[in-house]
């Protein structure tokens, strides 16, 4: 939990102490550990929800304890010990109506606060940054539109004219900024959920749903698709990265750096050739050109059922791949980023994936046989039903040499 | 189907009142039929809602405005409406234990029903020839589903009407068969009122 105690937080803390005795519900309230803890808000919207929910959990817990105590008392007190048959009374209106009025009153209060909060959370007028989010089986694409004044998410790139930025896996937002995501889906319904920043919102194909985010401080906020979306639903994660303004500016500038081909003769240069022949059909690397100097534009909609594949232009600036399911960083390097103090986080994150930190094992396994790592179709023959298009990344049958070349090439994509 | 024990218990038991067979004095069959019709309201409600949601979702030139032939549909609506009248006449005839007229009106009702179904089939083929297949658009799917469900109900009704005519001819004359006729009548009128809704909501109100 954050170290900045405010009145509601102190109250919340007291409440948690009170709940300790109230069983499992209370116990989970004190957790600090899991990255997706729903009781550890670190941003305005999640805090709003939390301010509403903890008193309700408290009341529910108290009522529960009372009910159980009364049942226990009744069970002990009125056990058959040979007492005469009790009076055959059919009820007592006073008790009955009291117990209608009492819960009704409690619920009326709860309802009042609830309705208030619902409209609070639906507010979108004060947005400072817009990001488009698109779900597909089984990863998220993030698209930063360019505003009329040439800025992206409220920031103007210092090194180039802004063009729409497309990334995936990790979505980067500036801290202390009211971010509005506009979400949809390319195939089935997915749900976007960063528990520490806000509740979840379904991303429905054919509809655009908006949802607010606001992070108090820098850090990685973990999330997971929460609407069942098919075979690899479990492998559809997301991470929201909040960076302080300077760091966000640096990240933005880096994303817009022009493409640089690998130095001739290196493994990475061979990787570029392999990339063009094997990957460029679906995956886009902005700035990559063919022999004639024409840009190579991917056409995932011809090959992939969902019609999209992650943009790899700045692949190694993200720490995860394949729907944020696997780390590009080795465990040690990963810990350094995740556990960095708020002051150091920006620098640690912006380092990206360095050669010594690269988690080669998972990346190579992925390139060797992606569907074996992340199930994408239960029965390959059934793909005929979908016009022969692949669902997610197929097994390309790459040789080990090709894989090494590709890894070398990808390492430079940052 | 009120075949059961209740009759036995009350008829032959120590029932002093003698006349009523059930707790409420109402017929089991009729109660069941009304319950069924209440339930059907939610079935057709769902289908109508689906149509209302999707009625505007079609290609430029294959929507209601281009396809509907109001005079034709009005005529078949009129046929179905009149079949309700003949059905009522059959019921009153059955109440009088007038088997001849009952059979007559039931047959006429069945004919009118069959005429309506034939009209619907004709209408469907016209639409189909103009290019509106079942899967052409959301509008066409929900339209065919709604009117198709209704058409199946009418067809089942026609079969029931003809079956009742058959039963009437086989059984003893003068016997009270009014409840049987009344049951079919309730079903038939329900099919009619569903069409009253469809005619206005689907055909007359522009999309």
């Amino acid at each position, binding site marked *: 939990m954050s170290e900045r105690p405010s009145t509601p937080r102190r109250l919340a803390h007291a409440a948690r102490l009170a709940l300790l005795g109230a069983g499992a519900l209370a116990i989970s309230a004190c957790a600090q550990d899991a990255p997706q803890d729903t009781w550890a808000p670190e941003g305005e919207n999640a805090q709003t929800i939390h301010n509403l929910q903890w008193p309700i959990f408290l009341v529910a817990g108290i009522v529960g304890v009372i009910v159980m105590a009364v049942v226990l008392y009744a069970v002990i007190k009125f056990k058959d010990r040979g007492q005469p048959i009790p009076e055959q009374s059919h009820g007592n209106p006073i008790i009955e109506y009291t117990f209608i009025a009492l819960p009704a009153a409690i619920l009326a209060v709860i309802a009042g606060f609830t309705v208030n909060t619902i409209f609070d959370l639906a507010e979108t007028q004060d947005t400072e940054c817009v990001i488009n989010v698109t779900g597909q089986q089984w990863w998220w694409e993030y698209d930063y539109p360019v505003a009329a004044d040439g800025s992206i998410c409220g920031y103007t790139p210092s090194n180039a004219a802004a063009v729409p930025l497309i990334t995936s896996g990790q979505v980067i937002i500036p801290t202390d900024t009211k971010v509005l995501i506009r979400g949809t889906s390319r195939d089935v319904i997915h749900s976007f959920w960063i528990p520490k920043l806000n509740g979840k919102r379904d991303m429905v194909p054919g509809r655009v749903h908006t949802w607010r985010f606001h992070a108090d401080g820098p850090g990685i906020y973990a999330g997971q698709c929460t609407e069942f979306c098919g075979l690899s639903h479990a492998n559809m994660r997301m991470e929201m990265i909040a960076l302080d303004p300077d760091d966000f500016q640096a990240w933005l500038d880096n994303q817009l750096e022009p493409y640089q081909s690998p130095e001739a003769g290196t493994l990475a240069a061979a990787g570029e050739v392999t990339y063009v022949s094997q990957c460029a059909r679906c995956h886009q690397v902005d700035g990559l050109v063919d022999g004639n100097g024409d840009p190579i534009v991917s056409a995932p909609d011809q090959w992939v059922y969902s019609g999209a594949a992650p943009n790899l232009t700045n692949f190694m600036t993200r720490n995860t791949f394949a729907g944020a399911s696997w780390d590009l960083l080795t465990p040690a390097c990963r810990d350094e980023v995740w556990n960095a103090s708020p002051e150091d986080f920006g620098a640690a994150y912006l380092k990206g994936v360095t050669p010594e930190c690269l988690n080669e094992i998972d990346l190579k396994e992925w390139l060797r046989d992606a569907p074996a790592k992340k199930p994408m179709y239960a029965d390959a023959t059934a793909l005929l039903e979908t016009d022969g298009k692949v669902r997610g990344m197929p097994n390309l049958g790459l040789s080990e040499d090709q894989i090494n070349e590709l890894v070398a090439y990808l390492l430079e994509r940052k | 189907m009120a075949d059961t024990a209740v009759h036995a218990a009350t008829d032959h038991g120590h029932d002093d009142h003698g006349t009523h067979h059930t707790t409420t004095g109402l017929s089991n069959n009729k109660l069941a039929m009304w319950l069924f019709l209440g339930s059907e309201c939610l079935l057709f409600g769902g289908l109508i809602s689906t149509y209302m949601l999707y009625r505007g979702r079609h290609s430029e030139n294959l929507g209601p405005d281009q396809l509907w032939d*109001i005079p034709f549909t009005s005529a078949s609506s009129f046929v179905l409406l009149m079949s309700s009248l003949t059905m009522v006449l059959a019921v009153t005839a059955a109440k009088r234990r007038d088997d001849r007229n009952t059979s007559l009106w039931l047959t006429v009702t069945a004919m009118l029903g069959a005429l309506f179904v034939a009209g619907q089939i004709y209408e469907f083929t016209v639409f189909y020839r103009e290019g509106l297949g079942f899967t052409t658009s959301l509008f066409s799917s929900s339209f065919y589903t709604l009117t198709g469900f209704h058409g199946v109900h009418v067809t089942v009704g026609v079969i029931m009407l003809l079956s009742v005519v058959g039963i009437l001819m086989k059984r003893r004359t003068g016997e009270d068969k009014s409840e049987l006729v009344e049951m079919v009548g309730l079903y038939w009128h329900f099919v009619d009122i569903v069409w009253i809704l469809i005619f206005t909501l689907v055909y007359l109100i522009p999309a």
Partner: protein
Amino acid sequence: MATDTQPATHSDAAHDDAHEEHWSDLSYIKLAIALALVTALEIAMSYTIGFWGPLFIPVLLLLMVVKFMAVVLFFMHLKFDNRLFSIMFYMGLILAIVVYFIALLTFRFFDA
């Protein structure tokens, strides 16, 4: 749900049966003619939408309800029959109308 269906209704039923006889075949024919006229009016309306302006849909719906209720109340005898039948049927009918209406509202269907 269905309450108060005490044996008392039995005598009501008998009473209502007598009532029912007041409707002769002729009355039914008159009603059918009236319904046909209402239908004709509806059709006429659909050819003169401009004349009705914003009233078009409300009036059309009203006529639809009139026809619907006429068949239910008279052809289906619900007006004369035991109240229990009405309860069973209207429960379904009203539930369907309310629930589906709300569902369509949530699609903001009526905004368009």
